[in-house]
């Protein structure tokens, strides 16, 4: 699916609003400022996926998008393994940045992922009246490409190109660098864009 520049702008605005909610929440959890990037919309051929997500170890907290569209794609809280340790250290009051991640960290990451995904989806529901509910979370801490590849393979629609809709959230004080990534099915994307266009038409 090709997006026009107006549609790209509209999606970016949606990302801004969704991620702003998530950033505020993360900032409260870490008690320090969190910066967010301009949302990126990248269309990637599956054969080139490794250029965007390689062998690096990262945590993926994954939710299927449910609700109005039953299998609408995925929303992912993505954080490099290094950043994940910094994040859970801050949350759990620990200091060693080189320790391995344990069960407690996994629970903490799932919890953060839950809150981030919900904040993001709440914002889109509020803005567009389009209800996307997160499924129960699934966590993996592994090679980034392997995780994203597995999700792409199990999408409803057979695709050769993947649309990655991502916004970076960075907390400099605690060296936490994370992303909220949406991997929408084309039905979800079409609905999002329709609603956004209607919103702009009826705008103030």
């Amino acid at each position: 699916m090709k997006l026009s520049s107006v549609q790209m702008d509209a999606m970016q605005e949606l990302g801004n609003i969704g991620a702003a909610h998530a950033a505020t929440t993360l900032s409260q959890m870490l008690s320090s400022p969190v910066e967010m990037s301009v949302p990126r919309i990248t269309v990637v051929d599956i054969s080139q996926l490794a250029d965007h997500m390689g062998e690096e170890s990262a945590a993926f907290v994954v939710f299927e998008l449910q609700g109005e569209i039953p299998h609408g794609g995925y929303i992912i809280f993505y954080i490099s393994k290094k950043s994940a340790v910094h994040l859970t250290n801050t949350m759990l009051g620990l200091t060693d940045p080189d320790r391995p991640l344990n069960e407690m960290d996994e629970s903490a990451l799932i919890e953060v992922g839950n809150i981030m995904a919900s904040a993001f989806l709440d914002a889109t529901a509020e803005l567009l009246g389009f209800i996307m509910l997160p499924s129960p979370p699934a966590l993996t801490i592994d090679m980034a490409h392997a995780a994203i590849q597995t999700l792409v393979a199990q999408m409803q629609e057979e695709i050769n190109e993947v649309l990655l809709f991502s916004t970076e959230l960075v907390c400099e004080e605690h060296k936490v660098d994370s992303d909220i990534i949406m991997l929408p099915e084309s039905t979800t994307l079409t609905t999002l864009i329709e609603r956004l266009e209607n919103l702009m038409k009826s705008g103030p």
Partner: protein
Amino acid sequence: MIGIGEFHVGTEPMMAIGLGSCIGLTIYDKDRHIGAMVHIMLPDSSGRSDRPGKYADTAIPLLLAKLTEAGCHKASLVAKMAGGACMFEYFGNNLNIGERNAQQVRAILAANHLRLAAEEVGGKAGRTVSFFPGESGKVTVRSADGAAHEI
């Protein structure tokens, strides 16, 4: 480096990184020292022909045809595969694509009378697979936190 749905035939080292539910399949000619590798994503093409390397049912005949073109004989070909993991338990209940990929590769290899000499499939962890046709067709597998080992 072989991306999803891509394949390569030759004598130089080849690699498929970060296999989750995907399969890295290698076929090596032990007489001619030529190899082929493909990065399979799904079990069935359901008639699609635009990317034969993406599906188990079309990828194996494709590699076989390319190796035959290069002068290889079926009797000297040996296959190995790795990948087919189930990384997300919650989503894996009804839809274990990794396992279905591995089963389909075994079935299509058997249907084409190709020998599967080694496999490392399943589990929950991602894998990177390297293939060295120049070193007697050596295949190594590495996980995110592990060292490479030969299969």
